[in-house]
């Protein structure tokens, strides 16, 4: 089964033109989220904000609001611009209900570019963590 899956993947790769393979490889390398940090939210020991972002442009990021549970850190909401089929200037968030990622929602504020979005998202999560968790 695994072998069949690998074989199908190889055929899929083989059927792509070399230029597209190279372009996809460069895009994957460039957009890799290579930086991560966390910040414990003030006023509690069990909520944190985590971001991951790429250093290279176009910047892809994800900012997560997480709650500590018996199983470890669980994500309650993630805001990002990382989607294979959309432009990186589309910023939105997804809530998690019972561990299931919900459809994308627009952010509740206007943003002007990626870094502005990341800064506003972090402040939004830090200010409203009680309502959002």
């Amino acid at each position, binding site marked *: 089964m695994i072998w069949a899956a690998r074989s199908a993947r190889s055929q899929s790769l083989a059927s792509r033109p070399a230029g597209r393979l190279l372009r996809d490889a460069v895009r994957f390398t460039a957009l890799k989220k290579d930086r991560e940090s966390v910040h414990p939210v003030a006023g509690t020991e069990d909520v944190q904000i985590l971001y991951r972002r790429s*250093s290279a442009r176009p910047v892809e990021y994800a900012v997560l609001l997480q709650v500590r549970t018996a199983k470890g850190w669980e994500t309650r909401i993630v805001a990002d611009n990382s989607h294979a089929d959309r432009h990186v200037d589309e910023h939105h968030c997804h809530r998690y209900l019972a561990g299931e990622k919900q459809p994308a929602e627009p952010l509740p504020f206007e943003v002007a570019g990626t870094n502005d979005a990341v800064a506003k998202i972090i402040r939004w999560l830090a200010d409203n963590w009680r309502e959002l968790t």
Partner: protein
Amino acid sequence: MTTMRTPAENAALSAFIDAAVHDDDPGYPNGAAFIAWQETPQTDRVLWSYLHEGRPAVIVGPNDLELLIEPLPLGRLARLRNDIFRRITVQVSYRRKEEPPTPDIPPVRADIGRHALERLAPVAA
């Protein structure tokens, strides 16, 4: 609703945001936890839990000094010893914001317990 924060908590949040929006590598170790520099039992517990996860910690105060605490990789025997004595072996260094680690204060290797900030605060004063 806006959360009320202390000056140290505001400084830690600002440092975290600055690191997140920096296009160049801001020089913090990957995975670092940005923690407000407050001598409270809660801060010590938060620091302890992140160090236990293996995360480096950046302790941020309202002045421009930051304390970097990085867990050091250890052999099996040393890890067992630390588990028994409930401590973590770390490297501690200081830096001014926006600057590389201060060269005149060399990094210090230390075994720290659950009340690390209480012990390290006088060193930074």
